[in-house]
C-alpha cells in the first residue's frame, strides 16, 4: 500500500499531467478510442445518395408510407453490411501488405486456372500468417455484420408481407 507521502506525491504529479497541449496532440488523442467506427451511422453526402437510391430500389413503385419506411430501413442495414465487409477486407489487405511488403503477385497473373492453395507455397504461408494475426479482430467485427444482416432481412420480410397483404 502506498504511504501518505507517496499518495501526496502522486497527487502532485497528477496535477502536472494535463493531457495533450498542442493542437496536433489534441487532434491525435481525440481518436484514441476510435477502433473501426462500425457502431456509428454513415453520414457523408455520397453515402446518403447511395442510400436513397437503394431505398428507392427496394420500395419499387410503392407509395405506401410503411413500405417506404421499411425500404429505407432495409437499405440502411444493407449499407451497414457493405461497410462492415469493406472494413474486414481492408483489415485483411492491410495485414497482407504488412507481411509481404505489398509485393505479392496476384494468382491471376500466375495461373488463372489455379484453385485456392492450401499451405504448399511460401506465398501461401505468408498469406496464412498475415490472416492469423488479425483473426481476433475479425471475430470481433463479425457481430456487426450479423446484426446488420438480421436488420436487413427483418425489414425485407416485413416489406414482402405488407406488399402481399396490400394486394389482397
Amino acid at each position, binding site marked *: 500500500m502506498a504511504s501518505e507521502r507517496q499518495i501526496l506525491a502522486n497527487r502532485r504529479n497528477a496535477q502536472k499531467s494535463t493531457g495533450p497541449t498542442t493542437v496536433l496532440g489534441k487532434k491525435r488523442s481525440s481518436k484514441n478510442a476510435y477502433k473501426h467506427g462500425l457502431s456509428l451511422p454513415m453520414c457523408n453526402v455520397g453515402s446518403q445518395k447511395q442510400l436513397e437510391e437503394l431505398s428507392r430500389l427496394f420500395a419499387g413503385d410503392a407509395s405506401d408510407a410503411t413500405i417506404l419506411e421499411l425500404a429505407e430501413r432495409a437499405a440502411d442495414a444493407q449499407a451497414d453490411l457493405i461497410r462492415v465487409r469493406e472494413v474486414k477486407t481492408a483489415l485483411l489487405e492491410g495485414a497482407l501488405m504488412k507481411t509481404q511488403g505489398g509485393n505479392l503477385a496476384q494468382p491471376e497473373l500466375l495461373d488463372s486456372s489455379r484453385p485456392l492453395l492450401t499451405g504448399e507455397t511460401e506465398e501461401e504461408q505468408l498469406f496464412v500468417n498475415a490472416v492469423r494475426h488479425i483473426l481476433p479482430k475479425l*471475430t470481433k467485427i463479425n457481430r456487426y455484420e450479423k446484426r446488420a444482416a438480421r436488420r436487413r432481412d427483418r425489414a425485407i420480410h416485413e416489406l414482402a408481407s405488407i406488399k402481399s397483404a396490400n394486394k389482397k
Partner: protein
Amino acid sequence: MSFNILRTESKSEFAKLKAEVESGIDPTDVFERGFVDDIVHHTWGIKRYQRVETGILNNALRKALAQILYEILLPPSKAMATKCWMSAQRLAHGWLLDPQSNRQVASLLKEAGLDESAIAAKAHTLVADDLANANRMSKSAREGRDRALRSIAKYRKSLAVQLRQNSDRALVADQAPLIAGA
C-alpha cells in the same frame, strides 16, 4: 454489390463460384439478388477460412516435429542440448523434402513409440488459439450462408402466396362475365 476479394485470391475462382450459385438459384428481383450475393460472399468466406485453418496447421507441422524430435534426441543427462536442437531442426526441415530425412524421422518416431499422427497432435496444441479463431470465422460464414438460404426460401414462399393471389384474382375476373351471362 461489390465483392471483397483479396488480391491474393483468384478472381476466376470467385467468378466461377458466383456463376454456379446464380444459376442454381436464378434470382428474380433485387431482394433475391441480394440474398444470392450474401450466399456467394459467405461461401467464399467458408473457403477462405478453411484455407487459413489448413495453412495454420501446415505451417505448424515442422515446428511441432522439431519439438518432438528434440525431446526424442535429447539424452536424459540433457547434455549437448544445442546439438540435439540443431539436429531436430535439420531433420524437421528435410522431413517433407528429403526422402532420407523422412526415413530417419519415421524410424526415430517408431523407436519412441509414435507415428506421424503425433506431429499433427503436437501442431494442434501449438496453434490451438489461432485454429479456434479461424474455425470461429468459418463457422460464422457457414451460419451467414445458411441464414441467406433460409431468407431466400422465406421470401420466395411469401412471393408464391402473392403470385397465387394474383392468379386467383385473374381467374375470378375471367369467370365474372360467364357467371353474369349465365
